[in-house]
């Protein structure tokens, strides 16, 4: 049975269970324009805005699950240096074993810090003074005194 496309259509309305050729063409054009990914595609500058529900779905990417800061800091000369990073605009060297990491883009106030040391023998590390714009990292020898020790810092859950 042949159908005739009505002259006036309502968006989202399926008429007589028929999808007209023109709709198919429009939809394909839309998909191409928005570059929906298929397996093997490389995505760049993807924005994730979804907030995780109280029971997250396994394997789903949420804004809360993204790293918001990471940095590798090395002490080799007179001042500490950034080996590599994400979202760190500068370091404030406050003295031996006391380094403040300043964020390029501010975070919310409820993030979680993880820090560890690049050393093979037992030492201590602590994060203190965290705000939306910076966190202070203190590294210690076993006697409790501040000591310059290369460290790594990661922050999750910081995006507003």
């Amino acid at each position, binding site marked *: 049975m042949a159908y005739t496309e009505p002259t006036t259509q309502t968006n989202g309305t399926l008429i007589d269970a028929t999808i007209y050729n023109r709709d198919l063409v429009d939809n394909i054009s839309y998909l191409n324009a928005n570059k929906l990914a298929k397996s093997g595609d490389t995505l760049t500058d993807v924005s994730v805005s979804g907030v995780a529900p109280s029971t997250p779905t396994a394997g789903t990417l949420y804004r809360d699950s993204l790293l918001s800061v990471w940095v590798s800091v090395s*002490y080799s*000369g*007179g*001042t*500490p*240096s*950034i080996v590599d*990073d994400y979202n*760190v*605009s*500068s*370091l*404030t*060297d*406050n*003295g*031996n074993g006391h380094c*403040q990491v*300043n*964020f*390029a883009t501010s975070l919310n106030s409820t993030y979680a810090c993880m820090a560890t040391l690049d050393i093979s023998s037992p030492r201590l590390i602590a994060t203190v003074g965290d*705000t939306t*714009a*910076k966190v202070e990292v203190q590294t210690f020898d076993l*006697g409790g*005194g501040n000591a*310059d020790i290369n460290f790594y810092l990661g922050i999750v859950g910081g995006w507003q």
Partner: protein
Amino acid sequence: MAMSLMRVYAGTPARVVVPNPRYRRDGESDADFLRRIASQAEAADPTLTAGVNVDSTALPPDRDFRNAWRVGNGAVAIDLSAAREIHRTHLRTARAPKLADLDALYMRELERGPQGRPQDIADQKQVLRDLPQDPNIESAATASALRALWPAALLGDTPYRG
């Protein structure tokens, strides 16, 4: 080219903002870049005030006496009085386990009775106790001179890297 301009702030010790060169904008000068990044650091920590720009080559090249860095006349220098205290603290830290070992040896010599030589051990302990009072520490005029005073024969490896 590596960023060499940094901003220092007076304090005990002096504080230094080290900008991340990856955040330099195209065509931005060293001074403009530092101004923008340091402003952000100052906003993050309002205790950073009245900073002074310095070239990194004007800073001490090592951190042996980092907690003795002080800002004066627009530059950073090592306060030798504070550096001497750092040196003395290193001496006290390094001698502590050796004094503990000598305490045990001293008791052992006492237990040996008339054949024991506790005074020899006591003399060794006194040498360690006297280390922070070495007059050469007070007369050392540079950081290098202080470093050179480390008594490796008594305390082992130097804590200094410079």
